[in-house]
Structure formats: structure tokens, C-alpha cells
């Protein structure tokens, strides 16, 4: 019988494409022959915008790149600028940075888990994850007055000191976290249907993951032990005791479950940071107008989505000469075609969910 493949446009408006991604699928019945992600629907030219802003002014724009983990983006750009200026940060500010960044990682992974459950048809799991994430967003709101676009971590420290009772509230959240995780385990990750859907689908070998420059949970799911927090500790991450969970086969299930395990590790880091946090100032002496010395710098941090790097070139003026971001979601998304070939339409959705791109960052 003569058959023919056909093209299916998934997106840019589709219930499961995490924003405005368009995937052009070439299908043989239900089986994917080729999946081409078409990006750029959310392109705002943030790199070019930031080259026309002062260093401090570029921080709020990083909030809008990976909008699910604004704190980590803030942290990355601020540490890059500090590296360029060779600035020392007060102890307390460093601890606050770690606490907020890890809380944000938990919030971001909660979304990943919940949205993957939604993509697989489990509505309720998504709602629970969003409900629990709300606790973190409330913490952030009382800290800096914003729930997602923080602009909290600044060059030289953090924008505000912790409000009264914030640390207790944070401890209370950590106390409730195991119960939340238990709920996810029971409802989402423990579910046999979900495991059937994810296990053994779209495996990624360690060699291919490295060759495609994947990072974050996508890379570690393939068994490559690379976490910037361990491999190249930034800030005060070398002071904390935590593990880097690794997967074995790099299939969808590993990529999904790794995020679940990373929540536990992030909670461990926060617990240690809450114990050790000292009193003191939260802002170093920073000149009003930042004019870093001429030079270039690259700095990277472990963002919930992977290895987020910033490359800045300073020509001594108040504005950067070059402002470039290495966006992990963008690079991880390039794996979609390779991973989707030979799987079903339903698996494309799941693979997209485990690659976990945030289109704000992909398109930048």
C-alpha cells in the first residue's frame, strides 16, 4: 500500500507548546518522522536592548528571559557584572542569594512537574503543583514586592534585607515540602500510566547529550555528572553539602524524575543556608554609575533549565559593548527533533515537557 507522510503544525497556538513555540511535525500516521521547532515568536531582542542600557538596567530584562526562574537569572547577570568589577559581596547577601535562587529552583521544577502531568492529561497534578508554588511566590512577594519579575538580586548584594519573620515563613515552607512531594509522588510520579508513558521513550545517550551541548537536568539524566554548582562553584555554593542526582538512560522518565530529586537537594541547600545565615549588611559599596574596567568576562550559573551563562564585554563606558546570554533552554530545545523521531505525537508533547523550554528564554 502506498502511504504518504503529512505535515502537522503544532503551535504557535496549541495547548501543549509551553508558550508560543511552533513545531512542524512530519507524520507517518501517528509516528513522527521529523520535528522542526520554529522559534522566534517571542523574540524581543533582549541582548541588543541590554547593550543600550546601563549594567544595572539590564537586570530587570533578565527576569523576562526565563520568567519561571527570575532569581537565578538575576544572580547570573549580577555575578557576571561583579566578576567584571571584581566586587566583594557581603556574607548575608550571599546567603540570601542562595536561599532565593534555590527557592526559585524549587518553584520552577514544580511547574515542570505539574505541566508535564498536564501535558499527559493529568489536570489535577498541575493544579497541586501550582498551588504549592504559590507559597514560594508569596515568600518572594513579601521579600521584594514581585512574584515573578523580581529584580531583587542587584550588583553588590540584594535589593532589600529580609523582612521580619521571613526566615520562619521559609522554614515553615520547608517543613511542609515533604508532604507536597509525597502528594506528587502519589499522584504524579508514582502513577503507572505516567511511568508507562515516560519510561524508555526518547532516550538520549551521554555522548549525544554532550555533543549537542545539553545542560541541566537534560544532561544529567543521561548520566553525565555536570552541575555548575559542583563543577565550577559560584558564590558560596562550595560551602553546602548536597548531591547531584543522576539518571541512567536519559529517557523522558529520567529527565522528569531528576527534577523531582533536585527539589529535595535544593531544600537541603536552603536548610543549611538558613542555619548558617549571618547578620550584617546586604549591599556592598557600589558606585552610583557602574563603569567596569575594559575587558571581557564569562560567568555561568546552574539555572533550573541548565547552564546559564552571560558574556559581557566592557569598553569602560556605562553601557556594555557586548551583552550575550548562553540560554540553556534554547540549546536543550535543539534536541527535540532528534529525540522525537520515531515516537508518537503524544510523545512529542512529553519530550517537550521534559526538555522544559521556557519560550521567553528560547526566543530571548
Amino acid at each position, binding site marked *: 500500500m502506498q502511504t504518504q507522510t503529512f505535515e502537522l503544525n503544532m503551535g504557535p497556538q*496549541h495547548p501543549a507548546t509551553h508558550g508560543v513555540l511552533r513545531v512542524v511535525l512530519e507524520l507517518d500516521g501517528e509516528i513522527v518522522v521529523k520535528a522542526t521547532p520554529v522559534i522566534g515568536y517571542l523574540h524581543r531582542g533582549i541582548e541588543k536592548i541590554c547593550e543600550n542600557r546601563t549594567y544595572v538596567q539590564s537586570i530587570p530584562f533578565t527576569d523576562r528571559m526565563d520568567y519561571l526562574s527570575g532569581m537565578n537569572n538575576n544572580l547570573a547577570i549580577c555575578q557576571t557584572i561583579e566578576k567584571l568589577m571584581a566586587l566583594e559581596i557581603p556574607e548575608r547577601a550571599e546567603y540570601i542569594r542562595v536561599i532565593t535562587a534555590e527557592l526559585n529552583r524549587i518553584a520552577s521544577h514544580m511547574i515542570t512537574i505539574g505541566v508535564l502531568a498536564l501535558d499527559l492529561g493529568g*489536570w489535577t497534578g498541575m493544579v*497541586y503543583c501550582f498551588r504549592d508554588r504559590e507559597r514560594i511566590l508569596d515568600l518572594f512577594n513579601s521579600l521584594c514586592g514581585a512574584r515573578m519579575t523580581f529584580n531583587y538580586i542587584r550588583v553588590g548584594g540584594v535589593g532589600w534585607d529580609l523582612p521580619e519573620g521571613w526566615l520562619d515563613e521559609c522554614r515553615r515552607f520547608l517543613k511542609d515540602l515533604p508532604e507536597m512531594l509525597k502528594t506528587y509522588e502519589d499522584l504524579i510520579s508514582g*502513577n503507572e500510566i505516567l511511568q508507562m*508513558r515516560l519510561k524508555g521513550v526518547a532516550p538520549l545517550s551521554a555522548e549525544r547529550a554532550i555533543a549537542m551541548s545539553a545542560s541541566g537536568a537534560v544532561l544529567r539524566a543521561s548520566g553525565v555528572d555536570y552541575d555548575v554548582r559542583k563543577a565550577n562553584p559560584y558564590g558560596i555554593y562550595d560551602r553546602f553539602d548536597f548531591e547531584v542526582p543522576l539518571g541512567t538512560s536519559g529517557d523522558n522518565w529520567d529527565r522528569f524524575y531528576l527534577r523531582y530529586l533536585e527539589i529535595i537537594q535544593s531544600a537541603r541547600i536552603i536548610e543549611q543556608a538558613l542555619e548558617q545565615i549571618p547578620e550584617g549588611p546586604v549591599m556592598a559599596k557600589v558606585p552610583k554609575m557602574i563603569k567596569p574596567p575594559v575587558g571581557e568576562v564569562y560567568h555561568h550559573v546552574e539555572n533550573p533549565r541548565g547552564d546559564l551563562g552571560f558574556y559581557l564585554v566592557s569598553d569602560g563606558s556605562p553601557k556594555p559593548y557586548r551583552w550575550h546570554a548562553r540560554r540553556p533552554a534554547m540549546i536543550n530545545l535543539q534536541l527535540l527533533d532528534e529525540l522525537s523521531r520515531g515516537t508518537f*505525537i*503524544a510523545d512529542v508533547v512529553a519530550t517537550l515537557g521534559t526538555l522544559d523550554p521556557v519560550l521567553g528564554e528560547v526566543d530571548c
Partner: protein
Amino acid sequence: MNTNQDILLTIAATLRSFLDPLLGNPDVVDVTMYGVALAAILGIIFGNAVILVWAERKVAGYMQSRPGPNRVGPIGLLQTVADTIKLITKEDIRPKGVDRWVWFLAPVVLFVPTLAAYAVFPFSEGLIAVDLNIGLFYFLAVASTVTIPFLMAGWSSNNKYSLIGGMRSVAQMVSYEIPLVFSLIGVVMLVGSLKMSSIVEAQSGIWFIFLQPVAFLIYVIAATAETNRTPFDLVEGESEIVAGPMTEYSGMKWSLFFLAEYANLFAVSAIATTVFLGGWQPPPMPAVMRDAVAFIPGWIWFAAKTYFMIFLFMWFRWTFPRFRVDQLMSFGWKVLLPLALANILVTGVGIYAYRIAIGG
């Protein structure tokens, strides 16, 4: 017979005695009474859809720690009414390139078998529109035609998502029809009749769910697939194929799909009640209590059990993720079908052994 006459039966009898002298010919009276029954069934379907849409949203809400609809009317009861008004006033969009007549007919045709299936539901003793001697067979035959309108909608919409959804619906419904039928055969073997009222009456001692637990399980799973609900909602498959065959429909046409979905949900639940849960009969209990609850009419028991089944289906929907299409097929053919066949075998052997025991 029953000492305290059912109120609905009394109304029917009164109506008949009122019509008798008016129309004269008993055949004409019969036809009129069928008309009344049809109107009653339509009332049940529409009334149920209103309640079920609201109930589903409430159940979903409470399961997701939110209140669900609570603005229109007391505890949101009028929400469905408001939604219906919205749907009626919406523009009826007909996309370019649809196969006009097939596209137009699909939602209407979908509604017909659903409506026809209601004719054989024994709501209470004597309260059944047509007590066919092949009632169960009739239901299965009529309900299995539901596949066709989905394929019609998917094919005629001129949309690839719809086409995939239509194809999925054929694959899914045909494969799950078989375990569904086979799961009911065990009960039919026990009763020795396909007549709905005799199936219910045969359960006056013990409900068939206790004699045929495996068949009940298979029935519930297959029925979930038949009604396209999670974890078998591949036909709609929201996150994959947008809305499947319904993607291009809007306004009242779309709401007919919606109505049929809930009518189907009620239908499979009513069959589960009839075949496995003792139909209109109260639950098994000591004789003293049986007298105490004798005043409750049969249709209340029937409705209570049916709504329990519906709640079960809703519970599934708001808990489970969705199967993938190949897993769905292999589960249906490799697990459910052998299990259903084994159940028939065991039932047959059991009946034979029982007969020997009685005879010897």
C-alpha cells in the same frame, strides 16, 4: 405487587386513564404514551446534562482545592444555564473546505443513538419505555454506532487534528467495544435473558458485582474508553490534538457533542447499575431495615447508584493521566480481551458445576 405504588407509575396510570376515553382507540393511546416517554427521556437527558456539567466542574474544583463554579445562582447551579445561553448566542462558524453535509450532520447523528439507547433503561419496576426482550443487545448495538459520527466529524472538518482524532476514535471504540460486550456476557449467562427487567430481578438475592467482580472491572474500564474520558480520552487528547474531531466546531454544534458526551456517561453508568448493581433494588440488607426503606421508590435507588457510577468516572478523570495510543490498543487487546474471555470461561464452568451440585 408492590404495596405502595410508585408515584411516577401512578402518574403514568392516571395519564393513561385520562387519555383512554379521550382517544378511544387503545393503539393511539399506546403511541401517545410512547410520545410521553420520549419527552420524559429528553427531559432526563437535558436535565442530566445540566446537572452533570455542573457536577463535573464542582468535583473537579473540589479535587483541585478550588470551589468550582459558585457565582451564577446558589452554589453555581445556574452556571450551565448561563453557559448554554452563551453557546446559543455564539457565532456558528463553518470553516472553509469542510464537507458541508457530513460536517453538519455529525453532531446530530451523534445524538440519535444516545437518545435511542435510553429507551431500554429500567429506571424502576415497570418504569421502562420499552422493555425489549433483547434490551441489553439493543443497547450495545445502538451504542456502538457512536463511532460513526466521530469519524464523520473528524473526516469532514478538513483539519488534520480532527482527522487524527477521528481515526483514533474508530480504533479505540472498536477495540474497547469487544471487552465491553464480553464483560456483559457473563451476566447474561447467569440470567439467561437479555431483557433488562429480568436482569434486574435476577439480582434480588445478590448483586452481580459480587458474582462477577472481574466483569465489572472490565466493564468500568471499557466504558471509560467508550465515553472517551480520561485515562482514555485520546479522541479529544487536549494536549496532543487540541480537541480531536470537535476542533472546528463552535457554538451549538459543539455543545451537542458535549451533551452527547454526558448523555453517554449517564448511559454507561445506568447500564452498570442495571447489570451489576441491582438496578432499582435497594442494597442487600436485613429484612427489618428493608421494610424501613420500602417507601423509597425504585428510581431513587437507580438514580443514586447511577450517580455513584458517574462520580467514579469523574474521579478517574480528575486523577489519571492519559494513555498513549499504542498502549491503549495493546491494553485493550492483550489484557482486557483475554481477561474477558477467561471470565466467560470461568462463569460457564461455574454455572455447570452449580447445576451438577443442584442436580446431584
